[in-house]
């Protein structure tokens, strides 16, 4: 142990003394383990954190800066945050988001929170990308998004007045490459934890539900009514999603094959990842293509708008009649309950905002 310390001392001394002109310092980053909310701790498995990308104070700060910095886009006009804005629970309010040149993708931007609890680590609506680190590679070069290329981005960051030092603090090297950029962004994304909705507080015993919210929750959990819990979590799975791919009956035929295009299996056509139902107050419009502007439309879809297709999920009920035909009161209460899953502290958390 002593000898070990001595070795380090010698090495550090050597490094320091060998840098006569430039004063490059060797930083060790400060560990910053995720703050796991009580409910998550009690109810569900631990988050996924890759061994080769531990959370650090410096890594998270760097990731945050990169997330809000348009430098990642080809013409320095667009940041991740343009399509993933804090006030929208890190989604945006457009149906399809504009890329840097105004070109539109064909999918609705996804909100970003509790991503470290996506145990299968399949990201995007169709799950085409494994792991958050890999995910962050994609938008930078996507022609309908930031339309940049990594060589260009690495160069811009390398020439920047602050970034080389920040990378050095976070990763012990000021040689910037795309892998480190995505590692830092992923660290920041993992800190985006939402667990302070009214319903969370109710579960923790510090808030009470209105009778409407309580009834709405019962509809959500009732197999004869909403039966939403098989795919969208419950008080025992406070992620409010199963992170699994389903066809929830939006279409008879598919223009976007979803999971089917990824797996090549026609039985997966029209399947998309169940989104979390947290923060719906901030994430309209809804569904992978943003087709529904309001929660009323979403609820009407499940209640009487289901469309038959060969891959529709077997959990969808009374498809021939369009759905289970909830009463007007039940629909209103279900909506009230859904909104109780929205977390105002999350969108107002200064740790996540650009200032």
């Amino acid at each position, binding site marked *: 142990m002593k000898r070990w310390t001595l070795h380090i001392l010698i090495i550090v001394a050597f490094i320091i003394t060998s840098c006569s002109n430039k004063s490059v310092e060797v930083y060790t980053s400060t560990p910053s383990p995720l703050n796991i909310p009580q409910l998550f701790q009690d109810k569900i498995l631990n988050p996924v954190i890759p061994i080769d990308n531990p959370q650090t104070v410096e890594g998270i700060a760097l990731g945050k800066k990169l997330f809000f910095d348009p430098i990642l886009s080809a013409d320095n006009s667009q940041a991740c945050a343009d399509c993933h804005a804090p006030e929208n629970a890190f989604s945006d309010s457009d149906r399809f988001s504009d890329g840097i040149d105004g070109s539109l993708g064909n999918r609705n931007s996804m909100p970003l929170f509790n991503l470290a609890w996506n*145990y299968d680590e399949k990201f995007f609506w169709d799950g085409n990308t494994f792991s958050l680190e890999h995910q962050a590679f994609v938008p930078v070069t996507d022609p309908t998004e930031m339309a940049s290329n990594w060589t260009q981005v690495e160069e811009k960051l390398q020439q920047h007045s602050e970034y080389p030092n920040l990378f050095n603090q976070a990763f012990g090297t000021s040689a910037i490459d795309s892998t480190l950029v995505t590692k830092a962004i992923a660290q920041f994304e993992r800190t985006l934890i939402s667990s302070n909705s009214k319903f969370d507080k109710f579960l923790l015993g510090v808030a009470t539900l209105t009778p409407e919210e309580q009834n709405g929750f019962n509809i959500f*959990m009732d*197999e004869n009514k909403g039966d939403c819990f*098989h795919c969208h979590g419950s008080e*025992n799975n406070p992620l409010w999603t199963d992170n699994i791919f389903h066809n929830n009956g939006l279409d008879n035929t598919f223009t976007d094959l979803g999971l089917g295009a990824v797996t090549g299996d026609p039985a997966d056509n029209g399947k998309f990842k169940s989104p979390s139902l947290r923060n719906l107050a901030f994430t309209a419009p809804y569904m992978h293509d943003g087709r529904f502007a309001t929660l009323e439309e979403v609820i009407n879809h499940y209640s009487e708008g289901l469309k038959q297709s060969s891959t529709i999920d*077997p959990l969808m*009920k009374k*498809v*021939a009649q369009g759905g289970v035909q909830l009463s007007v009161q039940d629909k209103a209460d279900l909506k009230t309950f859904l909104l109780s899953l929205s977390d105002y502290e999350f969108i107002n958390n200064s740790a996540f905002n650009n200032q």
Partner: protein
Amino acid sequence: MNKVASIFLFVFITLVSCHKDNDDNVSNVNISLHFTHNWDGIPVSNSDFNALKFTNENGEMLSIERLRYLISDITLTNSTGESLTIDAYNLVDVTNNGNLEFSPEVLIPTDAYTNISFTFGFTNEKNIDAAYQDLNSASWFVPAMLGGGYHYIQFDGKFLNSSNIEQGFNYHAIRAVDNPGANPTFPQDTFITVNLGAVTITSNIVFNIEMNIAEWFKTPNIWDLNVFNQSLMPNSTAQIMMFENGQNVFSLKSTK
């Protein structure tokens, strides 16, 4: 060099110190359960899913889209009637080829056991609401209004109904429940004790266990999917029929 020498020495000492221990004949071994599935004898795996290729006893054509079930409490009973229960559970996920092999991390004494059994689902004592994080994360829970706890099986698919239209079914078994709500009542137990019979265990052993999926629709209740297809969790009549039909679903095919 020094290190190599000491490793060498260590291995040598270990080798010479290994003499046969003849003091007693009991040693401890591992057991595992390996689950396979068939439809009246024809093997079924997830590659057979999503096609209307099965016909049940009542004559409905059906497909399997998802199949998961829970087993727990492997119990070994010896000739003196003592039993040893392994306090562990396993969620078999046929859809994703997950956990088809279950090897609890417990060593079992070799013995001539008069019976080995497991529980399909959870006994009521183990069926504790919210208690198991991995099962919560797998969305395996049962709503509190239905008594909470966990599913025993989730078997989802589609069948061709009497109007010749494909319709979903959700064969979900849970603890049968009446009066859903704040104070549900439980008409009878519906977890199943699956007895595999007598086994002499002398060394590490694998039990190959077969589920005949067709049995869920067959004996003693011929299952009519036109009547019982969805919303079966709050339906205690359906739950008790599942319990009855589940008695002969599992069998011990072989050991190795």
